Every structure is written in structure tokens, then in C-alpha cells.
């Protein structure tokens, strides 16, 4: 499984297509012809995975968005986001941006 840190920069893989319905995301991995449904937080992560912002910034955004309402501390948000990002990378939804990609 990909090792994900707050400094890791991830992007959606090129064959991933998704749209939100009622806050959730219908996700299609074209290469695998696989359809997934992600909950609202998973959909937010897909939005945030633009290949520019490191995962740490996602954590800040999601902690602000969900932390206060649900009384979840930043540490918990960080753990959940890192776990989800690693799972999403393993599932072929996200991929790390490398130095060569930037260059």
C-alpha cells in the first residue's frame, strides 16, 4: 500500500471519472470498468486531490469543514484522511505526484 504522509501530493488517476449526487460521489475507474460510490468525505477528498495541494492541506480543509460539527479533533481527521488516501491509492483512484511529474 502507498505510504501517505501530510506532505504527500496526490492526484486523481487519469482514468477516474466522478460526479456528485446528493453529496456522495459516483466514481468510475475506466480502465477497470469499475463503479464505486463514495460518501461525502470521500467525495471531498477526490475534489481535493488536484495534484497540487499536499494531503496536509486536505486535512486542514476537512477539519474545518467537519471537525466543529462532529466534534472530531484534528488528529482524528488526519488519521482518517491518511488511511482513506492510502486505500484510495491502493484502489487505483489516486496516485502520487513525483518530482518528474512536476518537472
Amino acid at each position, binding site marked *: 500500500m502507498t505510504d501517505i504522509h501530510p506532505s504527500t501530493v496526490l492526484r486523481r488517476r487519469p482514468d477516474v471519472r466522478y460526479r456528485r449526487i446528493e453529496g456522495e460521489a459516483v466514481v468510475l475507474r*475506466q480502465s477497470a*470498468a469499475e463503479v464505486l*460510490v463514495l460518501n461525502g468525505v470521500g467525495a471531498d477528498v477526490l475534489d481535493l486531490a488536484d495534484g497540487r495541494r499536499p494531503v496536509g492541506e486536505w486535512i486542514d480543509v476537512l477539519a474545518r469543514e467537519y471537525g466543529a460539527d462532529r466534534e472530531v479533533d484534528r488528529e482524528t481527521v488526519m488519521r482518517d484522511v491518511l488511511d482513506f488516501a492510502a486505500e484510495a491509492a491502493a484502489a487505483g483512484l489516486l496516485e502520487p505526484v513525483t518530482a518528474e511529474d512536476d518537472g
Partner: protein
Amino acid sequence: MSLARLMATAWRQNLLVSVLVELTYRCNLDCFFCYNDLSLKGEPLSREQYFRFFDELRDLEVLHLALSGGEPLAHPDFLALGARARELGFVVRIKSNGHALRGELARRIRDEIDPFLVEVSLHGATAATHDRQTRVPGSFERLLANLAEVRALGLRVKLNSTLTAWNEGEIEAMFALADTLGLPLQVDPEVTPRDDGGREPLAVTPSRDGVLRLFRLQTERGRASDAIIPASARSADENVPVPTDKHCGAGSSGLAVDPFGNIYPCVQWRWPVGNLHSQSLRQIWQGAAGLAAVRELTTRAKGVVESHGPRGFLLNFCPGAAAAHTGDPLAVYPAALQRRELLEQVLAAEARRPLLPVVR
């Protein structure tokens, strides 16, 4: 939430998910039973208008975009429009007759559009039958060569066919051909009137025996494939009934557009509800009286199907086809009644099958 529940939500809340765009009615084949209204006149949408339309689709969070025709590859801006669709993140399907799908064009489609799926029409298992339907000699051999080429390029391809009186005798061979090619084949058992109401295509309506043979074959093949789908590939709630208020998503989660900008609730239901030359899609989607009427009719269509009892779903009722056959989108047309009757026969035979293989 399961995918089925999300789609039910889209139907209920009128969230546009899928759009089919008929780019042109030009075609390099001449299929006898083509449903396009080739007499339809109007100002074709320009490349810029398509770009604006696609931007609107993106803003409305549309997921699926099908490029169709006529033959969509015959549109002069096909590659530019497909590439724009890819850039905007749609799941792109191309519905083509496959005749021009080769060489540089096929490679550019893969590289510049990266479609999720290319749906190609197969009309028979032999050149005699296929070419009889396309009315272009050599089209069958060329299709087979093109299919091999696009498969080698790595494009995902699916075969579509309509059962007709001319090809029903070789339906088993068509599935065998598809298996040999390593491609899925979907066969529609119903020939429909042309979009302008013309009934000439109905001259090749398949026979009752032909439809029954198709249903038996599909059931056998479904049974065989069910046996090899691992349980892990099924979602936990896929068998949980999903409450819906409508019979289908026509005009609620989907719509279709013809080359002249006319908007329809779906590709089958040819009731224009607006035109992109004079209105934005958002104006049509949110304000068209015709679309509101269609949504109401799909709600009533659910009641029509339910009035046929617990097996009403076997009608596979289509309000668009009903409108084409009878003028009334709520009228259960003879082909639907025949479908239910034949499917009940097939299901009854299935129920009599032994649960375990008989050892002799």
C-alpha cells in the same frame, strides 16, 4: 448508499446524470431500419455551441456523455468535441457503426478522447445478413477487420444489435462471433418506428419465435455467467428494493440532443422540450413545461406498469417506444405485451430446471 439508490435519487430530484448527443445524421452506411428522422431540418449546432453546451453539462454535474448519430465519426468536429468531453471529465461513450473506426482515426480516438466504451453495431453473423441490413457491400468484412484493430489498440468495445426478421436465424452465431472476438454483445429484441413516426422499419420486426429464441439464449448465457461471478463482486445491498417514484429517468436523469439543438427526454422519446439555439440547457432543464409534463408522465408510467401485477416489469415498458408505436406514452404496446408473455415462458421453464445436475 448503493448506486441504485443514488440513481433513484437522481430520478426523484431531477439530477441530470446522462446525456446522449446525436452529432450528425450523416452516415456511411444505409441501414434499412435506421430510426433517425433524416428529413429533419434545422441549423446544426456549431463547435462553439457544443463547447458551451458541454460546459453547462459539467456545471450540472453530468457524468455520462454519449456521442452518437447518425455516425458520430462523420461529424467534422468529432475529435475536437470528444477531446473537450474528456477534458471536462465526462465518462464518454461513442456509439458508432464501426465502418470508419480504423487507422489514424481509431488511434486518435484512443489518445485524444479515451472513451470509456465504444459501442459498435453488429447486424448479423454473416456478410450476407449484415450487408443486407447496412445496404453497403463489404461492410461486414470491414467491420471484422476494424474490430480486430481497435481491440489491438486497447479500446474497450461492446457490440450492439437489434433483432430483426433478417438476422434472427443466426442469433446463436452472432453470440458465438462476439465470443470469438472477445466482446460483449447486447441485443435489443424490438424494432421501433422511425423518429418521425415512419413505420417502414417495422417491416423487419422479428418473429415471435425469433424473440423467444433470443430470450432463451440470453437466459442460458446469463445462467452461465452468473455461475462465474464471485460473490465478492456483488454489492451487499444490490438485491434490496430501491423505492422510486418514476418508471424511468427520461427527462429526470437523462436527455438527448439532436444535431439541430432540439432537446428530448431520451433518445427514444422524441418529444422536443426545448432548443439550444434559443435557450440554455439550464433554462430548459429547470423551466421547460414539456419536461415537467414528461416527468409527470414517467410517474404515471410507474403506475401503468404496476397495474400489470408483480411481473409487470417483464414488459420492459418504455414510454418513448409507446409514444412512437401508439402516440400515447402510457399505452402498453403489443411488443411489450409479447415480451412479457415470452419472458414468462422462459422463466417458467427456468423454474422447472433441477437445482442440482442429474447424475446418470
